[in-house]
């Protein structure tokens, strides 16, 4: 590799988008199951859904949307060469991620405290549809939570590179791709929220 290639930004973004599609379909598998079981157990899903706390869900929606806003602004900032502002905005995104996870933690521990977790005796004794609902709920939000974590780590690393100067106005695909990933996490939540917390 003697001479350095010019960086192919479009190619890098193309690759990232393709990766996002795979993430989309990964969650897609869970949404297929959700759709099927919702069609089969509408009433059980309704009663089970009412046990989830809308305030937690709505709060987390706002937190994630805000984090996405910060992430998108960070891209604008870096492209305008405003490095300090970009860093601050990334910090905002990370802060939101932590709030999100904290809320998630409260929510899960409340549920588990009530004896609702996958394979719990309470669910096994209840109507079949509810066990399915909570099984899906834990898997989907759990997988989503893992993505929030990964996204957080990714953005921290990118933040460090912004600070170090290897990501700058002239070369910022890494930041753009990192935020793309973050927005995907947001997108998935946009569907989780109404489907699990609100429906019926």
């Amino acid at each position, binding site marked *: 590799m003697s001479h350095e290639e010019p960086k*192919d930004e479009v190619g890098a973004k*193309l*690759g990232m988008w393709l990766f996002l599609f795979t993430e989309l379909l990964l969650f897609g598998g869970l949404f*297929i199951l959700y759709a099927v079981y919702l069609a089969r157990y509408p009433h059980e899903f309704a009663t089970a859904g009412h046990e989830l706390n809308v305030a937690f869900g709505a709060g987390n929606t706002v937190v994630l949307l805000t984090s996405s806003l910060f992430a998108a602004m960070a891209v604008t900032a870096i492209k305008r060469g405003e490095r300090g502002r970009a860093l601050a905005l990334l910090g905002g995104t990370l802060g939101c991620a932590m709030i999100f996870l904290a809320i998630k933690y409260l929510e899960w521990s409340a549920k588990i405290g009530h004896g609702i977790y996958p394979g719990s005796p309470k669910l096994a004794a209840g109507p079949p549809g509810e066990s*399915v609902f909570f099984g899906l709920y834990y*898997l989907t939000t759990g997988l989503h939570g893992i993505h929030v974590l990964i996204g957080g780590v990714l953005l921290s690393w990118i933040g460090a590179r912004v600070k170090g100067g290897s990501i700058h106005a002239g070369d910022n695909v890494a930041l753009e791709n990192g935020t793309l990933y973050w927005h995907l996490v947001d997108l998935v939540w946009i569907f989780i929220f109404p489907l699990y917390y609100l429906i019926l």
Partner: protein
Amino acid sequence: MSSVQTTTAAAGGFWRDSGKTGIGSWIFSTDHKRIGLLYLYSVLGFFLVGATLGLLLRLELMTPGRTIMGATTYNALFTVHGVVMIFLFIIPGIPASFGNLVMPIQIGARDVAFPRLNLLSWWLYAIGALVVLTALFTGGGAPDTGWTFYVPFSARTGTNVSVAVFGVFILGFSSILTGINFVTTIHRLRAEGMNWGRLPLFVWSLYATAWVQILATPIIAITLVLVIAERVLGTGLFDPGRGGDPIMFQHLFWIYSHPAVYIMILPAMGVVSEIIPVFSRKPIFGYKMIAFSSIAIAAAGSLVWGHHMYTSGMSDTAVMVFSFLTFIVAIPSAIKVFNWVSTLYRGSISLEAPMLFALSFVLLFSIGGLSGLILGAAATDVHVHDTHFVVGHFHYVMFGGTGFAFFGAAHYWLPKFYGRRYKEKPALIGWALMFVGFNVTYFTMQVLGIRGMPRRYYDYLPEFAPLNMVATVGSWILAAGLIIMIVNLWRGLFWGEPFQGNPWGGATLEWSVPTPPPTENFEEEPVVSHGPYDFKGAGVP
């Protein structure tokens, strides 16, 4: 790998000029050619492992009752045989090895779009393979579920299913990354003049494959996670006692695993579309239709998964829809077969080893594909579903199809990358034995299936005994051919006659670079001025 180092001392090109030596220069290399070879050897190694297991399966089935092993061993054996062959051999098989080796050169690129990601793919493959192997020897022992991992059985058997499934999960990511890399590479790195109408058909087929890898593989990933969740957390999403539906597992599994069969066959079709015109000295017949049908197979192939579930208790409406769509997907395959055959017409045909493999691909794939039509029709599938007819069908398409194309590709391209070649005569003998043994083994199995012998049967009724004996003997002929072929290839590539220039007269770009190709592939960025099968335009005699 070290043997590779020493024995190719004569070869130059990318073998030498990376400046580094030792195993590190391979397993940490980002050169697509080195990664391709890494894949080639790993994949071939697992093929030999899987094939040996297949041989053992046949030995057990040679006579009714216990022949060489007990039921538990047999069940674990076909599961491992299936998992190794599908996830470790055939899915990465052609794209990750020959795709990596050849595709960037064919489009005039220096490397793939994301070389480091490419290396990561291989590492994930290696790690996934290791995890799968770990599953065999730890915990409750080798999984005994069949490669399909159907619940509820897979959720309750005491064997080490969770670890095996996790290994397959990792392998899935390896496959996805290869797909992402290839799509990006083909979109972004084509040389000047290499427009879509000039892409070699192998590249077209890899492009279609890559899309299937990207869009279908995540579904198996999540399905496997769900199996682990069933086992470890007891979620009960597929447990009928708690409102789950075991049929939904089958849907999710086949949403990936049917498209996966096109991940297996499309690159093989691409290989054949390269070899046939070169050895006929004639442009491929119907370039556009072959390219288009690759995309059509990839697209339509995503719609037919339900044909594995006709007897599962799925709704009759779904049986109708999936049966109909299954027949639609046969049409683009038919188009390809007819175009390949027409390419031969009025050509100047040379029957060297790669061509023999390519032509037998056409034949064996046709037999396998046509038997797929029996399976696609609802009434007939009910009878032969889960019998040895299905086993025969998929060995025809997978081994007779992809396997033969894989070996064809090895005879066609490897000399280019080694600068040495195998001997022609042993290659012919090996091929002939394989071809005969193959048909004896698998055609017999199809007859057995029609007679009603179910698959995954360790023991069978005496009425099936004679034919099983025939099939087993066939597998020995097959094994003999395979061993001759591999030994000949191996010997030839390291110690055989030198191989220089463009002896076969290919017009695609890989034949225009030095042998073996240098690390940078091209000394300067090529400008493409002729089509991939425009032999006159390329100055080939």
